């Protein structure tokens, strides 16, 4: 589904990302971990053509991301609050995204129905604009909006951060369902090793822009990751 070849990103003399080759097959729940500055957000931004690679390219489902926009219809993402439109109510925002993705109001409503528990009654019908919601609630809106229109690739940067424990548990279920039932490729980054190992079939560890581990998740994975990051304390 997603292929990165000789992908590098350099700012001045500093190389922030250097991937010789990375392939993510369709339907995989893919986890990305690494310390700050490891290149996680850089990789996601490259995938979304928000920054330009210094060398190499990314192909998303046969579409070369930097030269064509044809990846947009089947790819969705929530990176940070710059993906939210502050002056809309959550409903309006969902419908807006829905319309862009060719979903009728009823389609969007049906989808939102599934998330009423996830929203915990704090999102819909609150008479508030997105800019006035708390950070955690904003994140919930962004994540759910990224699921509108049955995208084939869903990119979530740090989805667990800022969420309350209950919502974290629910979000894990959401991601698992996505990858299991619907042939959706999910890319998740996180600082929380427990969460990623629980949701992702495969985990890639980035350090200083390079892949240092590429693991198929097994019951031992968490231990392995912990050992790796403990080793970073030098």
């Amino acid at each position, binding site marked *: 589904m997603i292929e990165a070849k000789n992908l590098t990103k350099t700012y001045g003399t500093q190389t922030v990302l250097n991937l010789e080759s990375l392939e993510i097959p369709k339907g995989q729940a893919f986890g990305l971990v690494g310390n700050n500055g490891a290149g996680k957000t850089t990789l996601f931004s490259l995938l979304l053509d928000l920054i*330009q690679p210094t060398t190499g390219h990314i192909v998303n489902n046969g579409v070369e991301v930097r030269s064509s926009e044809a990846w*947009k219809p089947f790819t969705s993402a929530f990176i940070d609050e*710059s*993906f939210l*439109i*502050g002056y809309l109510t959550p409903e*309006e925002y969902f419908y*807006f995204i829905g*319309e862009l993705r060719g979903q009728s109001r009823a389609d969007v409503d049906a989808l939102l129905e599934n998330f009423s528990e996830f929203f915990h009654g704090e999102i819909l019908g609150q*008479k508030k604009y997105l800019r006035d919601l708390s950070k955690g609630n904003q994140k919930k809106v962004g994540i759910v909006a990224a699921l509108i229109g049955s995208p084939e690739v869903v990119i979530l940067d740090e989805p667990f951060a800022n969420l309350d424990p209950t919502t974290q548990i629910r979000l894990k279920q959401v991601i698992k369902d996505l990858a299991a039932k619907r042939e959706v490729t999910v890319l998740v980054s996180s600082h929380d090793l427990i969460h990623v190992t629980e949701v992702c079939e495969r985990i890639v560890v980035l350090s200083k822009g390079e892949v240092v581990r590429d693991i198929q998740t097994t019951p031992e994975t968490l231990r392995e990751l912990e050992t790796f990051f403990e080793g970073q304390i030098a």
Partner: protein
Amino acid sequence: MFKHFIRLQWKAFVRSASFKTEIWFKILMALGALYFILVFLSLGVGSYFIIEKAGLGDPLRVVNRFLIYYLAFDLYLRYMLQKMPVMNIRPLLYLPLPKTQVVRYALGKTLLSFFNISHAFFFIPFSVVLLVKGYPVLSVVGWHLACLALILTNNFLNILLNNVDRVFYPLVLVLALFGIAQYYGWFDVTVYTAPVFDLFYDVPWTAVLPWGVLAGTIAWAYTYFKRHMYLDAGLSAKQEVGKTEDYTWLNRFGNLGTFLKNDIKLIKRNKRSRTTVLVSFLFLFYGLFFFTGSVEVYETPVMQVFAGIFVSGGFLFTFGQYVPSWDSAYYPLMMSQNIRYREYLNSKWWLIVIATGVSALLAVFYLYFGWKAYLAILVGTVYNLGVNSYLVLWGGAYIKTPIDLGSNKKAFGDRQAFNGKTLLLTIPKLLLPLLVFWLGQLLWNDTAGYLMVVVVGLAGFAFKERAFRMIEKIYKKEKYKTLLAYKQQGA
């Protein structure tokens, strides 16, 4: 401690995105700034002689008469445009600094504003001319200091008034009524205010009084802020009640309708965009200078075409030229969503077209000044639609100033208002049609001139596809730079 504050301020200034522009634009901007300084200086020096020549009497007394309006207008401008200092002191709250110091810094910072310094360009040269002309030194100094205190009082009054619309608008209304009353000779408020300003000159020691007022205002502002320095009090952002709106009538336009809906909400729900639309509405009345014959140089047909472009193009110029910037807060979303550039640009184009059309309709009252006046406006409308609508979208690609939708104060209170690129791109928008008209008028007559402008405008419609392709290319090329610049919110 103060050293730290100054360093912070300096960094905020030099590290903002708009400052890092290409060198030749910097030079151009410097030249522009120099030009404005010279204009103001010559106004300061020249006003004495202008008033003297007009035979209105002693220039100082004349200035004193109108000083009340000057101060009122200053306060009005400040209220609309000056940026408030309080929002960016949040990070300082929990640091081991005494609150009093933080407040003093925030208030002191406002003194360096363009709104205070710009007055020096009038008052200093004017006072110097007075001295050269042999006015008593002590009196002039007293008067000058009194004016300085009054301007600074305005600065702090504005801080206190900020966002208290229910005090501010009645105040403006009262002063506007005084102005109208004076114009028609019903009631002259200056008869009562001028002696006050004269007093500062006649009895120089009375200049102490405005300084006393200034000290009082500062103390008031100081205690007010100290008391309200809490996140849920003075530093809290106001919340509006959200209302979900549908605009289902726009659905029939497909994706275009989706964007238009969003743009309508954008305009309705954000302070900055509301102000912009209000300003663009005022453009409608700009033509009054041209068509009422109140200013002689404006009566030539060439200037009437100029007026036509301004009257119908208010929205185009004020809103249109910042086109991608309105979406700066969520530009990454727009760039990764299922949106083609063409559709995005097209929707903005339609918004401009609709607003320009509405402006042309609203301008129908110019018929009162003869059909020729309205004709000039219609000609301007066609040119705006056919040519300028592309030019603003094109120019927008280069304006990488993120817009803080929630705040009015950046519209002018920043050096960003003198964005050299904006100014530069305004020139072809305004001068080209004048040139075309002038050519037609030179070769044949007025009618031919109008016709030629219309033809150029209509030709623009024919080239819509081409123009869009070109603009799209530029937007794509600038995309990454734009994304990066928008990341620096509120710099």
